[in-house]
Each structure stands twice: as C-alpha cells, then as structure tokens.
C-alpha cells in the first residue's frame, strides 16, 4: 500500500500528543513505529536514519514553539542516547494555573500586542494574546483613542534577538560616523534597547571585555550569529544597566545652544532643555544624531559648545549648501 502523504503539521502535532500522553517517555524506535506521520513513512520503506534525522528536526522545531521536550537518558551513562526516552512534562508545558489575567489586564495586553508594525513580531504578540483569551477571559472594552507604534526596520534586529535568546556571540561590521571604513566587532549581545526611536544593542564587546551600546542603524551588512556561546547569567539585569548607562551619558553630555524664540527649534528643543544664563542646555547621548537634528533647524539655533558639536553642525550645513549650488552660480 502506498503511504498517504502526511503533512508536517499533522506529524508534529501527533508527536506532541504522543509525548504528552506518556509518563515514562517513549523511545525513538517507539515513536518512529507508532506515531502517525512517521509510521506511514516507515511502512513505505523510508530508511531509519532518514526518519531519525526527521525526528531530530521535529524536536528542534517544537522547542522553538516553546514545547519542552525532556530527554531521559540511561542513568548510568547520560551521554548514551540509544535507549533514551522522550516526553513532554505537563508541568513545564502548561501555562501555570496560578497565573490569571483580569479583563482589565487583557485590555492592556491587547493594546500592548497591537504596537508592533513589524509583521513577524506582531504575529508573536498576537499569538501571546490569543493564549490568554483561550483561558476563557473576555477583556474589558478595548482601550481606544491611543495608537502607540513600535517599528523595528533594522535588518539586524531579528538575528540579534535570536542570539540573545541563545546566548551566542555575534559579529558585525560597525561604521562609526567620522571613520572611513567599518570595523568588525565581536559582541556578547545582552539586550535590545529602543531609545529615542532608535534601536541599539547592548552587550559586551569581546575584544575590550567591556559593556558597550551599538546603534543598529550603524551596523553595515549582516549580523552573523556564531556558534560560540556565553554564560546566560550575563543577561541578568542587562536592560536596567543599559538604561542607566544611557542616562549617565546624557547627564554628562550637554550642549549649550541659543535658539530663536517662537521657532520650531525653540519648541522642539525646549521640551528637553534646561535654562542657562546664555541660551539653553540640552543633554544628548550621541553627538552625530543631535547634530543632524540641529542642522535641520538651520538659522533657528546656534551651537555655542561643545566645539565638536559646533563643527559637526557647520560641516552638515556646508554640505547642504554645496549640494544645492546651481551650475551658473559663480564660485
């Protein structure tokens, strides 16, 4: 008899059901012989080593879906997996029964789940909300009138998130403004940080063994996730350390600016400024990003200090002027 083609989702779901139903675990051979999806292939003469490879891939696939698969090896030789048994421990699979969500909490989570504009992250957020709704909770009236949005367009975002989850070292070329060529960096990535609408990765720069922040928009080319791991303990509290670091940088970098009252520059900069005897003080974390903004204000703002910021703004305005000279204009 020809084996009917069993779709992958059917085989995978049958595998979950089988591994959940067993207390003592199933051996690989029992799975290949009995679970629908493998069984038919075995009957049709598919080689055992090919089926075993399929089983290994299926286990990985299910683990990325958050399904915990426990391997019970030979107690006298834990590395010998020939007689290993596999099972899904219900207690690790189930959302803990003592975690409950109120209708008001569900309304907040639905708003939180709606903020992502990136398709893949948005799907993850929706899937999480769905699990809570599957508990039988119907939310309060949705929170309307507010539309917060997070964008994550940088191509480095997804590989960095994966590397953080797996505690793996990454490599990428990083181009700092003012440098001619990008430099290769090796990082233990610990957290992704959205600060002033720009994504950063916070991590340990392996070469100097110190925590640093990198702007994703300055990553040139692809982020490579290496096979080298690091201690997941490093990730503990990384987000708080990253934010504290940014606050420290902002507190120690301040621009002294003169703004023309009643202009766009006065409005926009005024929100985050403190008054100074001469003009206003505006804290900043990245000189080049502030210089871009200040250049956009043209004659509405003058940088008094620091000198590198002053030079950066003059450089930008000069380049704009140069790019817009007309051919007939005398030099």
């Amino acid at each position: 008899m020809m084996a009917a083609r069993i779709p992958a989702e059917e085989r995978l779901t049958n595998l979950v059901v089988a591994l959940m139903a067993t207390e003592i675990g199933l051996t690989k051979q029992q799975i290949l012989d009995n679970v629908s999806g493998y069984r038919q292939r075995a009957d049709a003469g598919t080689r055992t080593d090919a089926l075993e490879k399929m089983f290994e891939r299926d286990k990985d696939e299910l683990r990325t879906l958050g399904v915990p698969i426990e391997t019970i090896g030979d107690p006298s030789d834990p590395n010998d997996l020939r007689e290993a048994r596999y099972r899904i421990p219900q207690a690790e699979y189930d959302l803990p029964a003592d975690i409950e969500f109120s209708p008001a909490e569900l309304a907040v989570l639905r708003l939180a789940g709606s903020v992502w504009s990136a398709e893949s992250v948005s799907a993850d957020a929706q899937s999480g909300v769905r699990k809570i709704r599957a508990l039988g909770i119907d939310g309060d009236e949705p929170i309307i009138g507010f539309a917060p949005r997070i964008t994550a367009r940088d191509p480095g975002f997804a590989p960095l998130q994966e590397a953080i989850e797996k505690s793996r070292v990454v490599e990428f070329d990083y181009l700092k403004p003012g440098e001619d060529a990008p430099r290769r960096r090796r990082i233990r990535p610990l957290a992704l940080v959205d600060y002033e609408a720009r994504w950063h990765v916070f991590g340990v720069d392996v070469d100097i063994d110190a925590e640093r922040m990198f702007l994703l928009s300055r990553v040139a080319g692809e982020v490579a996730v290496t096979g080298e791991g690091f201690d997941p303990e490093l990730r503990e509290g990384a987000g708080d350390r990253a934010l504290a670091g940014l606050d420290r940088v902002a507190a120690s970098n301040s621009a002294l600016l003169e703004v023309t009252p009643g202009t766009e520059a006065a409005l926009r900069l005024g929100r985050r400024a403190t008054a100074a005897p001469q003009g206003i003080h505006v804290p900043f974390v990245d000189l080049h990003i502030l210089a871009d903004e200040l250049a956009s204000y043209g004659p509405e703002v003058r940088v008094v200090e620091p000198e590198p910021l002053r030079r950066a703004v003059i450089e930008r305005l000069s380049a704009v002027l140069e790019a817009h000279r007309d051919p007939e204009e005398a030099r």
Partner: protein
Amino acid sequence: MSAQSKPLLAADRVRLYLTLVPYLLEHGQVSLAEAAEEFGVTPEEMRSMVEKLTVIGLPGDSGYWQQPQEMFDINWDLLDEDDVIEITNDVALRRVPRFTAREAAALLAGLQMVAAVPAVSDSGLIAGLISKLSRGAADAPAEVVVAPTAVDDVRQVVARGVQEGVAVSFTYQAPDAAPMTRTVDPVQILITNAQWYLQGWCHMRQAMRTFHLDRVSDPRLTDIPIEHGDDSVPEAFAAAANDGEVSVQLPLRLAPLLGSFLSAADMRTVDGLVHARLHLADPRGIKRIAAKLGGGLEVVEPAIARTATREWAAAGLALYHQPDPSVRTVD
C-alpha cells in the same frame, strides 16, 4: 486580528493547534467565523484545520490502528450544517501552553511602550503584567527594552480630551508659520518614532488633521462634546490633495531615514541613487529634511524649494561667521 493573506507554514499550524484546542474546549461551541477572526485566518482555512484535527490522536500500538476514542473528534453535523465548531472527543492539548520566548518578548516590549499612555499608566497594571508574562514564558525571553518617555502637561490634557470625549483648544505653531488657536475634536493619539501626534477634527479647517504635540502649547479642555469621534482617522502622514510636490535624489542607504515621507509609488532607484517625489504642504518645507540629512539629499525641483534649502543652510552658517562666500553681503 484580521485575516492574513500569507499561507501558513507547518510551524504556524502546529502553534495554532496548541492554542485552538484549549480555546475550543473552553468555549464549547464556537462559530467558524468567530474562531477564524480570533486566530487571524480565513474561515475556509479554519474549517480545513478543524477537519484535520480529527486525524490527530494518540499513537497506535505495535501496528494496530488507533481506537476512535484515541483520536480527536468534532461534531461534524454542526460544522457542516451550521458552520459551528465543537470538539466532541479530546485526547491531549487541554491546557493553554506557556508563552514562547518571542511571544513574551513582543508583549513585554509592547507593555513598556503603552506604559506611557495615560489610560494605561492610571490603571497601575503594568508591573503585575510584566511579572506574569515573565513567569509564564517557556524560555527566558531576549530582553527588549523600550526607554520610557516623559509625559508632560500637554500630553496629559490632550489625553484627557480623548478619554472624556470633549474638544481641546490650544495654541498651535507649525514650522515657519505664525501661532494659531485651534480647537479639535480628538479622535486618537498616535505615538510613533518617540513623537506624539493628535489626530482629530479641526473646527477651523472642518476636516481631519494631525497635530504634532511638541508644537502645541497652552492646551485647555473645553466642555464641547466631540461630534466627529467616529470619523475614521486620516492616514497619519498622507499627502493632501493640494500638497506641493518636491523632487529629490539621495543615496539608497539614506532612503529609510525619510520614513513615511517616501512612498514606493513615487520612487525609482538608478545605480544606488533614489529619485523620489515627496509631497509637502509647502515645498519649501523640504529645507528642514534636507538639512537633517546633511547634504546627502539633494532637492532637484521646484526651484523655489531648492533655493529655500540653499538659503536655509546659508543662513544657518551665517550664525557661525561662515557666510556663503559666493554671496556678497554688507555688514
């Protein structure tokens, strides 16, 4: 949670089954349309997935086929005649699974983002939700941090207008324009790229408008009930019919910086250089965007916009005693 057009991958279907089964068991009988809406698939897709659920079951035993009670089953008559789903026999997957690391990360970051929304921060639910999501995750999520933003008086007052459904009146100062008093029926507060915008019905313009809250001062709540709260909000930064058109060119790598100004329909790329047409209420407003990109973007047409850009940069430079050497000035 609208129906998605993309075909589902095997992993998506498995993930869907793991939540669909407890959802159906919890809800008893659910219409096909409602379940499809909840899971973001088409009704046909949902019907097919529910039908295929009946081939999922416990493993057979040593070559014997499974007994009917070892398989999932549904009420076929109810599905065929009334388009209603009901599981009549279940064999596993009864409990809602834990959140995957990705689901938890997406929701945790979303919560940090919505924490700034007054309707949410007033609820005091954020901290509890963060702890529940972290505890309910199958694996430690990658830390994705959204730096908190300050919510000033302007934002508070406008948010109250949205929540209480009354018009707000304020001084609005658009760039390069004199301040005006505007009264607006607030419909929605859009928070994107770390900027807050009020979208609503402008009493003076008699139309939907988007206001940047940094340009709002002296906001007052009126006692005028809103009349246009149900109108659909405008596409946030959509061009208006009478907007001017500006032709620009810039290197491809800078194009993402234009964000929502750039629409695919209005751009073409030749040899790494993007030629684009942007829509602005006043074509001269391009000077600010051009200056922000520091000479990377060149304004091509109309001449009035190109000249405005050149003069903007020259006037800015003049503050640093670096006047355009090609222009003769009398001090």
